[in-house]
């Protein structure tokens, strides 16, 4: 399953270029190119910290995701638990025990949270919330600052558990 470079020959009989479409401008690309990779590529300027993150989390996220004090046996949250290794009775796949990359947290929150106001957070807010969630999940210290330099360096507890699927079809059941 590990991808290999493909030096692809054009065997379609098509011309290699049709001339449809147009060059995209740098500004157009920048507007949509919001992804963040594990190596930090795509992380914006700016930074955040745990305390600011906690404030934002409490006002913009907690209603749906709860916090350490939320008693999951009493209420059903609209969103998944984000601080899992505390009061959660079951063992949900959550940040502390399941997410292999910290950059994913930044990427995901920035592109689509809060659920009811997707894409409304500033980059600094996202850094801060990410810091808070990593702290609440006991992955970073309270005083750790998050920015494009520090975030990719964080090693998540679950990272070591992940393996690529290497099945290739055939009779074996795995």
């Amino acid at each position, binding site marked *: 399953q590990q991808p290999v470079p493909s030096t692809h020959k054009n065997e379609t009989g098509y011309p290699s270029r049709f001339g449809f479409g147009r060059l995209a401008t740098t500004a157009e690309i920048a507007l*949509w190119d919001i992804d963040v990779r594990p190596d930090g590529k795509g992380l914006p300027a700016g930074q955040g910290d745990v305390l600011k993150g906690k404030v934002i989390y409490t006002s913009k996220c907690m209603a749906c995701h709860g916090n350490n004090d939320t008693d999951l046996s009493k209420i059903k949250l609209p969103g998944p638990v984000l601080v899992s290794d505390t009061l959660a009775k079951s063992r949900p796949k959550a940040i502390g025990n399941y997410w292999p990359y910290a950059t994913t947290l930044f990427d995901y929150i920035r592109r689509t949270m809060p659920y009811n106001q997707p894409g409304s957070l500033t980059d600094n807010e996202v850094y801060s919330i990410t810091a808070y969630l990593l702290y609440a999940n006991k992955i970073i210290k309270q005083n750790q600052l998050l920015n494009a330099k520090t975030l990719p360096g964080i090693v998540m507890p679950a990272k070591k558990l992940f393996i690529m699927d290497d099945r290739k079809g055939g009779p074996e*059941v795995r």
Partner: protein
Amino acid sequence: VNSIFAKHVQTGPHIAPEPPEDPTKAIGPGPSAQGKRSTFEHPVRKFSETSSRSPLQDFHSTITPSDLHYERHHAGVPAIDPQKYELLIHGMVERPMKFTLAELKRFPAVSRICFLECAGNFRGGKEELTPQEILGLTSQSEWTGVMLSTLFREVGADPKALWFLAEGSDAAVMTRSVPVKKAWDDAMIVYAQNGEAIRPEQGYPVRLLLPGWEGNMNIKWLRRIELSDEPYMTREETSKYTYPVKDRIRMFSFEMDARSIITFPSYPQKIMPGWVEIRGIAWSGRGKIEKVEVSTDAGKTWQDARLQDPVLSKAHTYFRHLWQWDGNPTEILSRAVDETGYVQPTLRQLAEARGTAVGGYHMNPITSWQIKTDGSTLFKPE
């Protein structure tokens, strides 16, 4: 229909006007711009807030009517103006480019019949389950669009690119990492479903089609593709669509493993002693269905079912098997074999291979139906 859903059915009340005693004596309404279903037929998806399931037990063949295609949304169905739509392809390319919908349609087009299936498709746990409830997160369409390889040549894809990110323009801005090799194999950018424009719920105006690969990767409302030398490790491919295998978590299971389900007889249908045609569908994300075996004695013996021609690669394949039911209680099962030689496993085999925490995604166990003495059919939860 289940009353909880009947409330939401968008086809109006289910009270059919009484038809005439003798239809040969009354002239009917003439032709129209668009047809409607008979007032006696009400196939519906069963839907929750995030997904809906196709009524597999209602289908007599393999093309899913577009309005009954299963759904899985993460932030609802976006409204997209086709005149304003553009697809951006950038990253490790010679020329980052944007394509309008009209431009995409000018490229050479290809049509392909193939299934889509949510990697989380499979629900069990009780006897009163219909095929729709057990396995309704799969559907099949005839898709048309441009080969992604054609677009990759147009932008001058860097041969060193190993992955591409596909991104939707829904409010989840859904993203998945896909090996570039799939683009050279059979990935498509599609704008048509069953002959006409893709339905909004399936990605209007444009989606990514990765034949045989888990539904979530077939990014709907596609707006951007970025070529890269490594995967992005998005939330969907790390926190979701991964699953425990012994003491590890397996990620990047793209192909949907071969599976099958008997849709007739199934709960809550009833059969009568005598000849019964057992019917169902089988499919594999790795190629063609080689054969489907059916057992009518709880798995002791197996017979080859007839496969409906044409058997297509990565496509729902209808199977049928004639059986003479003697009226005694029994269990009926089906198992798919694909062209790689893979045989659909039992739940027990899956648990042995993957460990006891098995579950969640990419579960394709043989499913079994219990036939009771009165001919009624119940799902057999393991």
